[in-house]
């Protein structure tokens, strides 16, 4: 099982979007993919054409004492596990009553996925019990950020002391990708160079540009390779997917 964890440096940088698009692209490249939404925002489902009103999800099922693994499959054949729409109280109850240190591990085992399957874990940007487990269980952490001054500051702070940086194992397997690079913004290009110098080979060689097509695809409740197959974004996600595939191939070779 290839476990890939996608986390934004801060909320709103596009972690869920990248998870969804990457999953779709891997599927297009004939990979088996399951997307597991661990983000309480529960946005991932919207990329896969799930009803707005449908609040079903694994966390909700857990609190309602139902069978938790209610996976959905959208029309283009992608399987995903939505988080579920939780109220504040149920969310608190979930944390207190249902989650423990090995919960996710147990859950993933019970899914019983084949070794060539990609499991994409979409987690929120903060550090909580669930996210800690996700980070520990994954083979690859993809950290998403914008080429903005705010993100630069966050990054520099986190490099001094941070949950991931402090753990050698975690920091080894974590990589960065730039999202929402505005093509005609000089500052963005400058910032990209700064990030390159800062992160060196930890920064993936692919930047995702700020593209109207990505926004539109989300508005159409789908991913960009279906909404605008000729856009640059598709090529970028494809390159990203292929990069990841070759990375994992190298990793898995004895």
């Amino acid at each position, binding site marked *: 099982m290839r476990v890939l964890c996608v986390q934004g440096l801060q909320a709103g940088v596009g972690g869920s979007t990248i998870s969804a698009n990457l999953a779709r692209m891997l599927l297009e490249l004939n990979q088996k993919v399951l997307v597991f939404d661990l983000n309480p925002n529960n946005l991932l489902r919207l990329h896969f054409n799930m009803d707005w009103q449908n609040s079903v999800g694994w966390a909700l099922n857990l609190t309602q004492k139902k069978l938790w693994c209610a996976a959905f499959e959208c029309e283009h054949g992608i399987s995903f596990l939505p988080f579920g729409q939780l109220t504040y109280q149920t969310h608190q109850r979930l944390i207190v009553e249902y989650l423990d240190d090995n919960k996710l591990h147990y859950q993933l085992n019970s899914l019983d996925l084949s070794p060539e399957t990609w499991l994409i874990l979409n987690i929120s940007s903060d550090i909580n019990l669930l996210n800690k487990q996700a980070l520990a269980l994954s083979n690859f952490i993809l950290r998403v950020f914008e080429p903005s001054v705010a993100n630069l500051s966050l990054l520099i702070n986190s490099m001094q002391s941070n949950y991931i940086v402090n753990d050698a194992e975690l920091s080894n397997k974590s990589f960065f990708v730039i999202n929402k690079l505005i093509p005609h913004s000089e500052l963005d290009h400058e910032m990209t160079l700064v990030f390159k110098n800062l992160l060196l080979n930890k920064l993936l060689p692919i930047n995702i540009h700020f593209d109207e097509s990505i926004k539109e695809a989300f508005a159409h409740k789908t991913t960009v390779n279906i909404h605008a197959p000729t856009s*640059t974004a598709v090529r970028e996600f494809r390159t990203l997917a292929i990069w990841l595939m070759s990375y994992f191939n190298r990793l898995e070779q004895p």
Partner: protein
Amino acid sequence: MIATKKKKGVYSPIKTPLDVILLSIIFQPLVIQEWRNFKKILFNDRNQLFGTFAGLFIFIFMILFCHESQRENAAIFLKKCFPHINWITLSFADVIRFGLQSFWLMTIQTQTASAALSFDLKMILNIFNLITSFIFLPFTAISKGFGFVLTKIEKASENYQDKFDPKYYLLGIFFLSMVCLTVPFNISAQIAFIFMLWLVAMIARTITGNLPKLILISLSLTVSTRYLWWRYTSTLNIDSSVDIFFGVILICAETYTWLILLLGYFQTAWPLQRKPTPLPEDTTLWPSIDIFIPTYNEDLSIIKTTTLAALSMDWPEYKLHVYILDDGRRPEFGEFAKEVNAGYITRDNNRHAKAGNINQALVKTNGEYVAIFDCDHIPVRSFLQMTMGWFLRDKKLALIQTPHHFYSPDPFERNIGNFKKTPNENTLFYGVVQDGNDLWNASFFCGSCAILHRDRLLEVGGIAVETVTEDAHTALRLHRKGYTSAYINVVQAAGLATETLSAHIGQRIRWARGMAQIFRVDNPLLGKGLTIGQRLCYANAMIHFLGGIPRLIFLLAPLGFLYFHSYLIYAPTTEILLYALPVIVHSSIASSYMQGKYRYSFWAEIYETVLAWYIARPTTVALINPKIGTFNVTAKGGLIKDEFFDLTISKPYLFLIVLNLLGIGAAIYRYFLGPDNEHGTVFINFAWTAYNLLVLGGAISVAQETRQVRTQHRIEVDTIVSIRKKSGHLICAKMEDYSGSGLGLRIDSNVLNFERNEQVHILISRGNREFVFPARITNVNKGFLGVLFENFTKQQELDYIQCTYSRSDAWATWRTDFKQDKPLTSIKAIIGVGFHGYIVLARTLPKFITHPFLLLGMTIAFIRSLLPKNISDTPTTFDVR
């Protein structure tokens, strides 16, 4: 009433076509539907009696013998496999075409045909292959065996340590070859001899390596020397004064050709193929370099690109200085230089043109090295890093030259229409000759795209000013001082070729005159300081340009017999053929083997014929008095608004054509009215004249100047870029070509929402950086977009040049695209070019003369159209992936 309505097409009743009715008698509706589809693709739904029934015949045949899955693509298959048949308007000649092509596909192009048919022909193919390999078995076996032995010898010779005295070997070889060359054979012995040599050559050319090359060279030299010996000893008719007069002229020309052949083999036998040497890690050890861009009357736009590219070369900034040397003294050039931080040097006179210009700048600057670029030669950013390593490695090095490469077609390429299909005239020199020179430490300076060591250059008095080819002369002086030179055969700069044939000829006249001048003023065979190899290489470069008169002699030689009944070669016909043909065959085998990718067989004939007349006089004059003649600047970057035939320049050729045509007439006259025992001689001279006419036709077809409307040449590339629309959408595109002002982009044909005059941004990445350029769409056509850049800032101009012209790999794939030479294909091409010349000529003549010729031409074209065609693969469409 109804009839008129029908004519107007107000309504027409749906009529079932006859073929459908016929089919529906026998077959089910499903088949009828299939037939309709088939007809639609093949005939575009047009009904035509003969075509429809021919199609029907094929269709029924298919129904009976083909599987359903094969029938699906049958119509497309037919179109692909019979490219010369226009299915919509079939004629009876197409039956012949169909038959011949089917036979062709079944026997020769089996592989492609079965691929197109997706039909398994393996069994038939295997049998066919078995037969052919059985026939060639002894041949292949010998070739394999020889190859094995030769590689062993080559390996053994590499490890050979013992010193030996070459004198004895040379003496032995000399005696052996003297026997080989001088012993007279009777006809049957000569036949056996040339057959054996030919066999060895045919085997040797299938093996790659240096030893087979040397074998081919020695074979060619053997037969040509033998031929010359035979000519001198037994073909001069001393009894007739006319015969001896013409005979001596011809034999002189032949001796010249033999000498050039000999020197040419010497020069190109073993190209050095020097590789770049890495520079030290520490950039403070890198030397300082001045870059000179001399200009006289060229446009600022041309200088701009070159200067910006030179400024963006990868080299420590404080060690790189770019200077524009403006002999035109134009203030706007000075302003531009100031803007981009380049130096600007002028002088108050124009003495000694480019050489004087550079010498003047040498005084005013002080870098350790000087790189010189003609103002249209745009260097790539890696130029210095690829070359400078050798200066640090070889302490005696004074000069490094890199190839001149042209991204625009030269007049030959443009007027014949073989740009990028056939290696151009230039390619041989920079691909093989300079590399061969390099082995003898004799590669010389070509005026541009080169780096010189300043102190060493000043030691020989700067750039030489005594001749009009200052570059070669400077290199000669450096070599005389004991300095070395290097040639790195990696294209690191590209420029514009001359625009018109007259300009091209003007440039070559200058070279020829200059080389002849050096030969007189500073003869490389004489004087101090040169090795024997250098002497021979320089001598060949110079003597080569004296080829004008011999070439003219060959063009006129057969007329000596046809007009004056003079036996230039006083020998029986069979003997002439037995001695002369091997010379032609072996020299073309050897040159094809050696020059393969750089010069296709027989093209030299056309290149040299075009120049022959024009360089004949200046070289002779320069040899007599080297001081006469002025320097003329080669004009570049011009426009040719209308297609025109350059009559002035082709006058000498027209004259030669008329003479040769009269010769053909004389040949016919002599054949029918002359004595019977002369038929053989008449035939040889007739064939020679016909060949001369063909080559002259080639020269004429080059003089037909085709239109040249672009001011900026488009350079083909294959890079992925993005287009950013105003709306914020990014569209993926493939950059197909670029020029200084715009791009040609290929987009997925499903993307329709582009409009003319739409403002967009183009994103191009270079290395790990990305650049954005504002542009306007000027052309939208089915997946193709033409864009024009607008409002570039200075920085963007620089960035754009770095993304395009000065990319390190900008010209990397250019030469590798050429395939290995195939002499037979090449002959075909030459014949085509020669004929084209006469078509061009026919257009300018009055109708009553040309009519019979046109008729002849049409007949030939018709017969050609019947012949089978090669199936080419269909061009691949653009895929974003």
